[in-house]
């Protein structure tokens, strides 16, 4: 357990130090959402209508932004070789790294989202569901991203390939996540979409570490 904790602490420390890229996703999220009202124009009714989808799309792209370094940095400096020899199973290693990615990228988005909802005139009753749906949905983005990052490890400038691999997998999370918020805004039943969103996340949390670890093992040979 102390080995897992040591790895998590190291990942967080690396992300928060200069060049770690923890602020990258959050900054991207802020910029995109702040630009939307300028592009669309000051039409409160229209902004309120597109707010749920826009917030979710921006959060999804922000998550994607720092994913390509998830295993690539460790691969390039030889750390990944040593990690495979460590007492931690590769699956646990992948899960911890994806968790650290969520803590440094997904969690700040969840916290910043209500403030940005304000700039898009999100209806009052949707704020709680915006936070809840992002909190439940973004871990799936980090863990699905780990699969893509594991598949593209060792490929220089693999970011584009990573996006192409991962974006289709993000679509269910996007649909159900955005649907949660818009259903809340329209005062219709939120639970069906929320349950599906939770299901996608649980499925991903269970499957992604195994898939990503298999991809890394393939790469080692």
């Amino acid at each position, binding site marked *: 357990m102390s080995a897992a904790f040591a790895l998590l602490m190291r990942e967080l420390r690396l992300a928060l130090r200069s060049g770690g890229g923890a602020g990258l996703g959050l900054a991207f999220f802020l910029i995109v959402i702040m630009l939307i009202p300028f592009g669309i124009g000051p039409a409160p009714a229209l902004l309120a209508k597109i707010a749920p989808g826009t917030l979710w799309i921006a959060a999804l792209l922000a998550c994607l932004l720092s994913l390509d370094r998830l295993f690539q940095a460790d691969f390039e400096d030889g750390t990944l070789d040593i990690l495979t020899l460590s007492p931690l*199973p590769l699956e646990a290693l992948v899960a911890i790294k994806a968790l650290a990615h969520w803590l440094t990228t997904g969690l700040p988005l969840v916290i910043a989202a209500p403030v940005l909802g304000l700039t898009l005139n999100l209806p009052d009753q949707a704020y709680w569901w915006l936070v809840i749906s992002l909190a439940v949905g973004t871990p799936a983005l980090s863990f699905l991203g780990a699969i893509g990052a594991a598949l593209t490890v060792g490929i220089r400038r693999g970011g584009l390939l990573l996006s192409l691999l991962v974006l289709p997998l993000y679509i269910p999370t996007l649909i159900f996540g955005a649907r949660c918020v818009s259903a809340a805004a329209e005062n219709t039943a939120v639970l069906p979409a929320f349950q599906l969103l939770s299901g996608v996340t649980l499925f991903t949390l269970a499957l992604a570490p195994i898939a990503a670890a298999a991809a890394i093992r393939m790469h080692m040979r």
Partner: protein
Amino acid sequence: MTLTVSDLTCTRSTRTIFSGMSFAVHAGEAVLLRGPNGAGKSTLLRVLAGMIPAEGRIDLNGQALADGRDAVQEQITYAGHLDAIKPQLTVGENLAFWARLFDGDTLVGAKEKFALADIWDRPAHACSAGQKRRLGLARLLVTKRPLWLLDEPTVSLDTATVTQFAKIVTEHCAQGGMALIATHIDLGLDSAREIHMPADQTGTPPSNDPFLSGDWA
């Protein structure tokens, strides 16, 4: 504790890197791996660490690598061309992480033996190549594994540190450890046995891909 390798052959994308390697390393022994560039020394070490598959049999303590990769890998520590150092972390943070990850909270004298005390709080990106290499090799001690697989460990080390490193390897072996070291220099390990790997004679076989040979035009 014995590492036994029998009839090991490694082929990567039609090229035979090495073939028919058989040797044994016993507890308390340091073995030097010699051979010209491209002979397959690095590949052999990575095969032994379970990072590259190969045909043949590798046994550590009677446990075959093919049957129990995790059990075998947990006896091994590997130091390759890359030092596995994070430039953003300090020297101390880098080493303490490896110590905690490999279940050894103590640094077992690694700080003193590799003379890291003076640069302990320095960020690793500010260290020289030799200092980084010392930090990379200090990991060998904190992982507390019996079998050391070392790929040219003395690159960019000064002569005093090379002597010190030879002493550390000797101490490790005296405590029942084993080391397999690919190197071109004289480490000063008098008792060390040598394994010679022949030069790459096969070359790259001609490709039968019409696109590569130009026949398609």
